[in-house]
């Protein structure tokens, strides 16, 4: 265990705890408007203050954590479910047209930043959390495909893979039995990175109105609401911002820590 892992794990666990607790308890009803109490700074009753409708921001942050985590987690899931098999297949068929096709399509997807994908999807199907998940998820596919292929390629050159081939095992079996388990650490680390990027992307999409729609609370939209109030109620911008930063920081630290803990050889490799 190391310092990064402990600190990162602590921050991530805190956010997860807030999200889970919000299902059973929040200090106030996050949707309840109370205009007389609007724009209060953090105080004993409203720990994070209130917004321009007088809603309790602590409760909103708790419930907003759910949206962030759900969107980012599902997007990572989409990326892993599709990207890892594609990467494994490309590596197993390295140098053939199948590999070329997979990698070229990946390059093409990279030309559509997740925001552009979101714009396209929104233009056609309208905004919403599901579309945000799809947009971020699609962008994650080539990320996992590339990482998987790159690492799998070097494993395919190793003699223990040759030994497995001499033992008569086919490409699919070798990929499942030898390649994937040796990539697991790398993919877990990449997963936490993409998870944190997903949180940021979700916040950005919600901020411009392409993410979760009201009444589903989200940190990005809280910031959009705060924009016109920032000069006289800075806490409205500061608090959701800090929530995003601490979550992303926690996940990144955890990723670094996990990498060092799981595999010392990967240390310093990742930006």
């Amino acid at each position, binding site marked *: 265990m190391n310092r990064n892992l402990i600190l990162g794990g602590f921050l991530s666990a805190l956010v997860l705890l807030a999200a889970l607790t919000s299902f059973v308890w929040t200090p106030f009803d996050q949707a309840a408007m109370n205009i007389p109490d609007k724009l209060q700074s953090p105080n004993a009753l409203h720990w994070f203050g209130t917004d321009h409708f007088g809603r309790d921001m602590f409760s909103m942050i708790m419930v907003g954590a759910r949206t962030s985590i759900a969107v980012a987690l599902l997007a990572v899931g989409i990326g892993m479910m599709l990207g890892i098999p594609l990467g494994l297949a490309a590596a197993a068929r390295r140098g053939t047209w199948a590999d070329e096709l997979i990698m070229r399509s990946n390059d093409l997807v990279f030309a559509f930043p997740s925001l552009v994908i979101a714009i396209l999807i929104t233009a056609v199907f309208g905004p919403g959390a599901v579309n945000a998940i799809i947009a971020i998820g699609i962008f994650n596919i080539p990320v996992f495909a590339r990482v998987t292929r790159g690492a799998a390629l070097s494993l395919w050159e190793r003699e*223990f893979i*040759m*030994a*497995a081939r*001499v*033992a*008569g095992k086919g490409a699919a079996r070798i990929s499942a039995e*030898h390649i994937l388990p*040796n990539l697991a650490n790398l993919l877990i680390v990449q997963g936490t990175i993409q998870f944190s990027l997903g949180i940021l992307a979700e916040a950005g999409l919600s901020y411009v109105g392409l993410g979760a729609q009201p009444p589903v609370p989200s940190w990005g939209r809280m910031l959009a609401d705060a924009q016109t109030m920032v000069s006289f109620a800075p806490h409205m911008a500061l608090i959701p911002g800090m929530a995003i930063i601490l979550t992303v920081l926690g996940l990144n630290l955890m990723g670094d820590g996990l990498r060092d803990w799981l595999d010392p050889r990967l240390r310093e490799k990742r930006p």
Partner: protein
Amino acid sequence: MNLLEITDLSLHIGAFKILDRVSLCVAPGEIVAVTGESGSGKSMTALAVMQLLPEQMQATGHIMLEGRDLLSQSEAAMCATRGREIGMVFQEPMTALNPVKTIGDQVMETILIHKAMDPTAARARAIDVLNRVGLPQDRFPLSRYPHELSGGQRQRVVIAMAIALRPKLLIADEPTTALDVTTQAQILDLLKGLVADSGMGLLMITHDLAVVSDLADRIVVMRQGEVVEQGETRQLFAQMKHPYTRALFEASGHQVALPAPPPAVPLLEVRNAVRDYTLPRRHLFREPGHYRAVNEVSFTLNRGERLGLVGESGCGKSTLTRAILGLEPLQSGEILMGGAPVFTGQRPNLEVRRRMQVVFQDPFGSFNPRHRVERLITEPFHLLDDPPRSAARRTAIGDALSAVGLRPEDASKFIHEFSGGQRQRIAIARALIIRPDLILFDEAVSALDVSVRAQILDLLADLCRAYDLSYLFISHDLSVVRTVTDRVLVMQAGEIVEQGETERVFADPQHDYTKTLIAAAPRLPELGAA
């Protein structure tokens, strides 16, 4: 006065001792070889002279270069010394040069960094030294990049960089270990010639006693961070006062006694095998070119025979190995095992495959680090229709491990718990477990220290007696092939240029290439000849 005098040099990382009171010296014009197995500290001694040790290492003692103690010099003074007074050549020529700079720039950099000359004179000097190391300007202009050169040529560039300012001392750390024998002989000649012309001292680090005996004036034998013996070359070989020196010498020229092969019945037949690789398309509308890695190769390996395959890197021996294993298809010709083809249509023939196994070179890369030994060595069971289960499986694992000199209890360990030699034993156990008719040894002892290598060769001889092994032993190391094979094939540029009884081929080579190869191989001195 000596040029370099190391006295009581000790190195530590924390409490861990790497060098223990090493003392040695080099006189001008003298070649001193430091030899020993891995972990002996020979390379660390060289790096200590350069003061290029990893940061956490602490050195004590004295390293005197012409009366100045390098250990007490400042880093700035060391920068002025390196390259100007001491040059260094490293083991891996493929990675020792910066890939994005021309060889001319890299040679000139040695001169310019010390502000020894103006750029025009530096350029002339660079041309001069490149010429001296055998890279004349008409064929190797300064504008060449490292990737355009072969390994041997790159090593010449590294040497040119090291001697550009005519240093007093040259340190060469395993300068020929990564090279083929014929290239090795040329580089060793070059180093010898440079010392003779310029009178510089050469401190040569090598694990290869045969190289040492040809080249060095004096030899320093190291083991586990200590100097066990040193002396004038011929005297040292004649006396070998320390038992470790003798053990090292014996292991280097280790001979095994193979049982006589049974009467010739063909087992593996390779007929006119051809393997082409398609080169990247040079032109959009033209057919892509081909590279013929294996060209019309034919030979027969008889049941119970130990056949050697020797050749330098790039000669096609690895490609041939993969084709025999059925991992790659042939473009024409055929490979038959007991009369059945190893490759039928687009797929390897499973019937044939289960009769062959392989042992690879790298004792560290040939096992999945996540599996236990029992799972690792039973992987070939995948080839069987009805693999042994439960008790039978345990017996098979125990037998295979016992056969290679390990204990059945080792089955539950992970691979990282074993040394390099033990891992090679496990690799042999994996090959033996399905009792194949043929085993391929692909450079199987090349990565091992000589003493471990000797043990593995003994194990092979024992297994030959116990199991009537047939094997194909692929290696670049002629002395090893000579002792563990009955017959030998010599491969050059994709073709078999000579084959015959091992002793006959080595004693009386017919083909020019075989002659060159045998002449280039460094030899241990005959004991008592001095």
